[in-house]
């Protein structure tokens, strides 16, 4: 070479610059990885910070007289129309006799949730002997009181700009000082359906809706997915048709989920006239959505079964169907189950297609079957996230925590199945 310098001298000269580039590149890599991990950290931190308090709820103790005149006018118990709210109000008035004017009283009544009346009704219904007696009951406070005690209402702000007046705050303080207010585990969150009143709104309806939907989905998509995978892997001739199916399945797995919603709306609701907002329709749409996922996972786990097993069984005179059902299927089952659980966890988190088929309605009743109007847990989150009340933001976070909990459990199950039943060939 014509150069005067030796190779190692040239290399040494450029080394510092190259090392700097190397370090920069490496730092970029660390930074990028940190972005994802950091987001996850921030995300869970804000979620828990916002949602943890929703698992507790504020209750107020009231001395309520179960006045027979009100509950059973004319001797007959009238659960439907009796003024239970009135009993609660009477109790409030006697606790705070200083509230004389109508305006004051109205403010006073707003300390207690409308749920208190329902609680009284249920108490009387289950135990009619209590009528006429004086009861000391813990009834749910209104969401404003709840928010105040959880520190979400700033008393130092100008009175007109906050949801609670000075008087109300004073009453709450008086209750607090005499130990007539306490925070308990929030049963309503898990036991109630949706409600316009944040302190009464719960996720039970949504959870049950999701449950019925997933039941339909798993019952359809697992057998169909496994059957399709078996056909494609074991029986399908390698021709245009099977190529088409193959390309099709891979594409379906990447089609935006909202398009499946359009399909559900046009086919299941408009054409087949299945009921709107019903878990069965949601389940059908989610079946179509998760089918590609399950087929792809099942095919992979069938491919992992070594051909020698098939040859051994065929050599003993088994028919190809027998080979599949006696040998391949049992060996591939763990992988298929894992795939099914992953598919189900995707279905559980899915909400966009459900909006299309009317599962966004405000539904108070907990669904009791596959055709009852229902909503789903992620859709409930979407609905609550849209509500302006401060108390709903807290409940949204709590619902997200519950949803993520379910997803975590499902994925954990998948991991355990994979670990437990994994076979090395």
């Amino acid at each position, binding site marked *: 070479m014509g150069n005067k310098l030796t190779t*190692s001298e*040239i*290399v040494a000269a450029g*080394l510092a610059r190259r090392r700097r580039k190397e370090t920069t590149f490496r730092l970029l890599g660390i930074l990028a990885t940190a972005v994802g991990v950091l987001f996850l950290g921030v995300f869970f931190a804000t979620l828990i910070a916002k949602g943890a308090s929703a698992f507790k709820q504020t209750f107020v103790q009231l001395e309520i007289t179960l006045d027979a005149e009100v509950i059973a006018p004319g001797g007959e118990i009238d659960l439907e129309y009796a003024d239970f709210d009135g009993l609660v109000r009477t109790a409030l008035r006697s606790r705070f006799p200083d509230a004389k004017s109508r305006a004051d009283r109205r403010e006073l009544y707003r300390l207690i949730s409308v749920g208190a009346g329902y609680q009284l009704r249920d108490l009387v219904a289950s135990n009619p002997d209590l009528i006429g007696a004086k009861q000391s009951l813990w009834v749910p406070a209104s969401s404003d009181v709840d928010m105040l005690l959880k520190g979400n209402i700033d008393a130092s702000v100008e009175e007109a700009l906050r949801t609670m007046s000075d008087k109300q705050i004073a009453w709450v303080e008086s209750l607090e000082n005499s130990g007539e207010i306490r925070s308990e585990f929030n049963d309503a969150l898990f036991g109630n359906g949706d409600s316009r009143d944040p302190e009464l709104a719960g996720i039970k309806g949504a959870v049950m809706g999701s449950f019925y939907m997933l039941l339909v989905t798993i019952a359809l998509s697992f057998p169909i997915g496994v059957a399709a995978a078996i056909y494609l892997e074991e029986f399908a001739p390698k021709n245009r048709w099977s190529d088409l199916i193959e390309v099709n399945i891979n594409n379906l797995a990447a089609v935006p989920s909202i398009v499946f919603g359009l399909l559900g709306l046009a086919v299941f609701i408009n054409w087949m006239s299945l009921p709107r907002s019903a878990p069965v329709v949601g389940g059908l749409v989610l079946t179509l959505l998760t089918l590609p996922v399950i087929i792809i996972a099942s095919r992979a786990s069938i491919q992992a079964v070594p051909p020698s097993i098939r040859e051994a069984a065929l050599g003993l005179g088994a028919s190809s169907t027998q080979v599949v059902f006696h040998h391949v299927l049992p060996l591939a089952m763990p992988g298929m189950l894992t795939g099914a659980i992953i598919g189900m966890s995707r279905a559980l988190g899915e909400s966009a297609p459900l909006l299309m088929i009317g599962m966004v309605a405000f539904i108070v009743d907990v669904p009791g079957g596959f055709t009852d109007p229902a909503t789903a847990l992620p859709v409930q989150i979407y609905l609550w996230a849209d509500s302006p009340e401060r108390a709903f933001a807290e409940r949204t976070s709590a619902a997200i925590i519950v949803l993520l909990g379910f997803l975590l459990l499902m994925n954990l199950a998948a991991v355990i199945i994979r670990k437990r039943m994994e076979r090395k060939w």
Partner: protein
Amino acid sequence: MTMPVMTETIPDNSTAPEAPAPKADNPDSAGRMGLDEFLEQATDLTDETVGTVTCDHPFMVADDVNVYYGDNHAIKHVSLEIGKKEVIALIGPSGCGKSTFLRCLNRMNDTIETARVTGTITLDGKDIYRKEQDPVALRARVGMVFQKPNPFPKSIYDNVAYGPRIHGIAADRAELDEIVHTSLERAGLLKEVKDRMDEPGTSLSGGQQQRLCIARTIAVNPEVILMDEPCSALDPIATARIEDLMDELCEDYAIVIVTHSMQQAARVSKRVAYFHLGLLVEVDSTDRIFTNPQHKLTEDYITGRIG
């Protein structure tokens, strides 16, 4: 990538550093011993190396080198001198550590997370494992040719120009052209590729690809070239061409070659080192190793009794 494999004497290539031992090097298999016997023999092994580990003009010197992969002690107390402009062949049965030792010489073992090297290896009197030594600069001086031809998915020209470019060796385009041409010429490939420099390197045949890799290595103008079974994936004709090439290259470079073929070792090398289970058993001039081996294991191996 497909490689023409013409005879069965060529062992199947694999990506593992150690290819399976050649089975047909010695057609007389009557005296072969089984694996069990072979392992029993291992108890005779000591750290002592027979023969002469030293040479007249030592350029790279390994002193008491040990390599561990996790808990696995892969190389045990190996000391060896490699002379300037000499070809030294490392032979031995599969898994004996010869490739591992080779990869120590340009610190390619650094890329394996669990690998640990102790002892010293010096290049021109300086420890290559010292702290200030940049492995990048070391590898520019100690080039490597791999078992399987591995041209980059770039044009033939870019393959050869890669090294000079990253190290900034060529001042301008004309100089780079010259380096590429000289390197290809020295690798004996220029005539075949001079009209198709823009075609991808992967379009060449297996033997041509390997010569391209050699051209790529010498384009950086290293001082030592390490060859890890460079012919194991090639047919006999391509192998012969590479061996001729080595003869020419040893006028300028020290060459360390790992090989499974004793004929190849006999043809190309001046000295031979026999490895066995991570130990360096015997080192001597090629003539002496093949005519009058000192150690029984060496003798068993070259007569084909261990395989």
